[in-house]
């Protein structure tokens, strides 16, 4: 079943569409969850997280869009996995580099602006830089994994990631965000 049909049926709350969604995307969603967990969670926890992702999508089916279904699943899988790890007091990886902005932490508008700005910066980057950063920071893939999947050496991967991060830093500074 293609995504367009899936979304149409999910919006109508057709249970067969939910089953088809699980069938089509459970491997993808559980892979995202497993990457984020980085080996700290067992199979049963990963399965529970994966199931929770589909339940969340089911509840929010009115918000679904066929073009972004896969990304939407990944975002939810990532968020649920991080929440689960934090709840279990496992350390979620943090980067040594942090951006610093002077916005008010309480302001949703400021948060939205930062998010929009960040998406725009990422979209301006080269495809290779973007892929490296997304694999590392979004999917939580490790260097050997990224290297294997992009068919590059680990050293090229490390260098590429280092350069991509510097270019990201420059772009963020240009837009008024400090970088520590």
């Amino acid at each position: 079943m293609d995504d367009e049909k899936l979304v149409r049926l999910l919006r109508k709350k057709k249970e067969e569409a939910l089953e088809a969604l699980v069938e089509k995307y459970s491997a993808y969603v559980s892979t995202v969850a497993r990457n984020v967990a980085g080996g700290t969670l067992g199979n049963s926890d990963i399965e529970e997280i994966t199931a929770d992702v589909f339940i969340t999508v089911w509840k929010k089916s009115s918000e679904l869009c066929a073009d972004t279904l896969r990304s939407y699943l990944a975002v939810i899988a990532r968020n649920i996995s991080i929440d689960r790890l934090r709840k279990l007091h496992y350390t979620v990886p943090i980067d040594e580099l942090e951006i610093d902005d002077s916005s008010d932490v309480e302001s949703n508008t400021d948060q939205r602006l930062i998010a929009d700005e960040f998406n725009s910066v990422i979209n301006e980057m080269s495809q290779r830089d973007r892929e490296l950063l997304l694999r590392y920071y979004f999917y939580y893939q490790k260097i050997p994994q990224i290297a294997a999947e992009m068919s590059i050496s680990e050293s090229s991967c490390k260098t590429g990631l280092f350069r991509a991060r510097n270019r990201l830093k420059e772009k963020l500074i240009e837009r008024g965000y400090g970088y520590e």
Partner: protein
Amino acid sequence: MSKNLYDLFSEYRGELPEIKEEKCDSERIKQLVRQQTSEKKNIKVRRNPKMFIISIAAALTAVTSITAAAYSDNFGGFKKVLRRTEASPAVNSELPLVNGSDTDGMEDNISVDSVAFTGSDSVSVKTAGMYYDNNTFMLSVEMKVSDGISIRDDAVVIPYFTKYNGDTAVEMRDQSGAANAAKLVKGDDFQTYYATFYITEKDIAGSTIGVRLENIIPRAALTDCQTAIVAEQNKWHEEFGTDSSIEDWKAYWKENDLDKRTLDFMDSYYRDCDKIVEGSWTAEVEVPADIADTSTFENNGFRVKADTLSITVDAERDIPEGASYEPVITLKNGDVIFTTGTKETEWLKENGVFTSEDKHENFASIYSNVFSYSKPHDVNDIAEVSMYIFNYDGSELTVEKNLVYTAD
């Protein structure tokens, strides 16, 4: 404020690269999904309205380490156990004591006296704390396993509760074995585990609650048991004749007490399934007669509780057997609180009771007859509470609106 790159990338909404997918057990995931969606859908009045049991355990997932000091027999220690034995934000917000509500003056509703269980030597069990009000009983237990026994991360324990009031004994259970079990949460050593059970039951004050914990089993057995029950019930239906009317089948169910047969089947399944630790542990705990009522609002079968952020539907209302119901709460600011994703609320939408455009807030979680908000609501903010009762007699659906509460 500062954000690290991982946080920033959580804001990313664009196209993502393809990644190499690892195999997973999609059938198992489907089972888990089905289990959760059917829990939400089958919100029905119990055949025996006296029997309510709600457990936070079905979704309990936490396996964490807690310092030994946190488990001292005191109020703070009990709260810490509760925080760590919760499962998800939705369930957590439903629990008294752990949802950030003001707990001053709630000491009357809490006991941290340690009650020892008797039973199999393999595990020693004692209470870690109790919370009770007029219709809620929450119990945390500490389980210490003997040397040489190893508990897996997916271990759950099955509880059985009986309420004794004078000569009356009411077994508090339903047919959802999964909902009754609690996951064991690891303490700071390899021998100590904790579990929390949460029950709603009317007239709990002054009663004695008999608690029996039976066997530590893998979580997967719960889902397997549900699947086996469905298959068994389908077999009974086939034996009866699937061509017969729904009414005949319901009458047959009642006459032959298939509720009890289902419970017997479930008990037998759990008795025979693979176990992590085999054993049985029992205790009796007293609930004081003069416990404080923490309800903030009670009217016509609805009880709104700010401390548990929940609304409780009294199943003894005049609801036909087999009917399902959906409460709909309209706030004074026009927001509507209802459940999305159920056939009932879809019907309400299709029939113009509210529309997709209405600003709405979902109930965060639904456990049997307790509907939990995702955030606290002051009773004074509520304009109207309606109960929609859906009765399908096999050929025709009738929907009745009962106005439960309306602001002056």
